[in-house]
């Protein structure tokens, strides 16, 4: 007997038919929680450690050389202990050849979803600085992300900011077929899009794109716009040399100081000075006015 399958069941079957099968009994897939250009993310239960984990599985099947590089990278990633980086607990290859990465399960929302709720520019820049901090930490240990975007940043239940998928993009890109566009257009550095060798400055570009995306609807001051533009310079040599340098310029902006990316006019400098010290200026002005009134009354 042929049973009618509603749309929801069809979607479910599309998902479960491709759920990864692990050797042994350690990981049991519970649900699919995401799907991107490079792979799908599953919620799973780790029977050995009795905890839920997230498992990312690549779409493609890589060769042996890529697997060697993956293992090397996984060892580096395992050593990346930073509160802003989602650690990879395990990595390997499924029986069907696909790669998998077992990561900490984060409860919260992606940055993409998080900014749907009202937030101030200052809050967004605070999140951005923490992303830069995590990325800079990884860069200092020789790990380039290669796919930084709002979907790869999680805001946890307690406001923690976590960057996901370090190292995943490289392995996934090496295993994907040539027809696939890897990374995410709009957030990917031009040299990466052209398939050239990339370094940490590709991540700086992606951070700049993320900054531009974050401030998009806030009619940003020119200095902030200039920071994003410098981070996204076409030539990698013209970008901030490190994520730390980019974060430092953001910190200067938030503190009301001049930023490296933008040469101010005299009017802008006066305006910034007035905004930064407006309380003190108002007090002095009030004092001067009061003295003037007193002097006038005495005369």
């Amino acid at each position, binding site marked *: 007997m*042929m*049973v009618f*399958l509603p749309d929801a069941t*069809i979607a479910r*079957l599309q998902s479960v038919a491709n759920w990864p*099968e692990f050797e042994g009994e350690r990981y*049991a897939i519970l649900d699919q929680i995401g799907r991107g250009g490079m792979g*799908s993310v599953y919620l799973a239960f780790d029977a050995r450690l009795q905890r839920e984990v997230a498992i990312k599985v690549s*779409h493609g099947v890589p060769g042996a050389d890529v697997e060697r590089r993956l293992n090397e990278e996984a060892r580096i990633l395992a050593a990346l202990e930073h509160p802003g980086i989602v650690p990879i607990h395990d990595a390997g290859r499924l029986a069907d050849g696909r790669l998998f990465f077992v990561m900490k399960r984060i409860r919260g929302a992606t940055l993409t979803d998080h900014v749907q709720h009202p937030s101030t520019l200052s809050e967004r820049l605070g999140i951005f600085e923490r992303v830069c901090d995590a990325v800079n930490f990884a860069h200092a240990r020789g790990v380039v992300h290669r796919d930084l975007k709002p979907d790869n940043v999680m805001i946890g239940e307690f406001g923690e900011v976590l960057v996901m998928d370090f190292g995943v993009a490289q392995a996934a890109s090496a295993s994907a*077929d040539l027809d696939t566009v890897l990374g995410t257009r709009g957030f990917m550095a031009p040299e990466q899009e052209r398939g050239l060798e990339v370094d940490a400055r590709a991540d700086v570009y992606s951070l700049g794109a993320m900054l531009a995306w974050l401030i998009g609807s806030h009619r940003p001051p020119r200095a902030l716009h200039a920071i994003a533009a410098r981070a996204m310079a076409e030539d990698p040599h013209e970008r901030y040399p490190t994520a730390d340098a980019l974060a430092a310029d953001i910190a200067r902006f938030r503190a009301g100081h001049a930023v490296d990316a933008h040469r101010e006019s005299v009017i802008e400098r006066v305006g910034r000075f007035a905004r930064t010290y407006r309380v003190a200026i108002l007090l002095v002005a009030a004092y001067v006015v009061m003295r003037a009134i007193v002097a006038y009354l005495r005369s």
Partner: protein
Amino acid sequence: MAFPPTRHSVIERLRAAAGGQRSAAFGDLVEGYWKPVYKHLRATCRLGPEDAQDLTQAFFSNAFEKGWLEKFEPGKARFRTFVRVCVDRFAMNARQASGRVKRGGDVRLVPLDFDRAEAEVHVQAPSTPPDAEEFFRQEFVRALFQRAVGAVRQEMAQSGRHVHFTLFERYDLDPAEGVSYAGLAAEFGLTESQVTNYLSLVRRTFRTRALGALRGLCGSDSEFRREARDLFGMDVE
């Protein structure tokens, strides 16, 4: 429930075969496409049940006799889109010719259960004409999956794996709120690992069946790989 026991595309089979073999190849094609065609005529073209039934029969009969579908060129579009465009042209010509379509030829390649298809149309009941391409694609997938689920059910029954299929029904086909591996394990007297393994087997069988049928309904190998990726997010050889 016959699935094409072949790794060739539908066009390769139709072009290579002759006589009875061609009928068999075309029968596989009709089995995969007749229901999407019928529903497309009902929902998108807004034909009544009788006209849609007549047109569906006539379309496949004419396509078989005149070799329309063999003219497909893989570089131009997906085979599925080509079929839909052929149906649209056929329906338009039939309307212009007589206002009402007559069943064509005596070719009956597979039994077409229009009553069941009509019942499904009523369940779905789109209030406005849907986007033709998207609707046809979804109905193509629905027909494909329904056949694959039926084949899995049969295979599990024949091998005595009734519990396997029941778990598949309970967890994947029609999951109740809060259903879990642990709950199913307790209910069926299994361990959670057994539930995991049973479900993995049925899902794998479903995937194999669905991909086997899909390969037989695509116009080329590259189209099959693209369709498989769109459907399941996976790369296939």
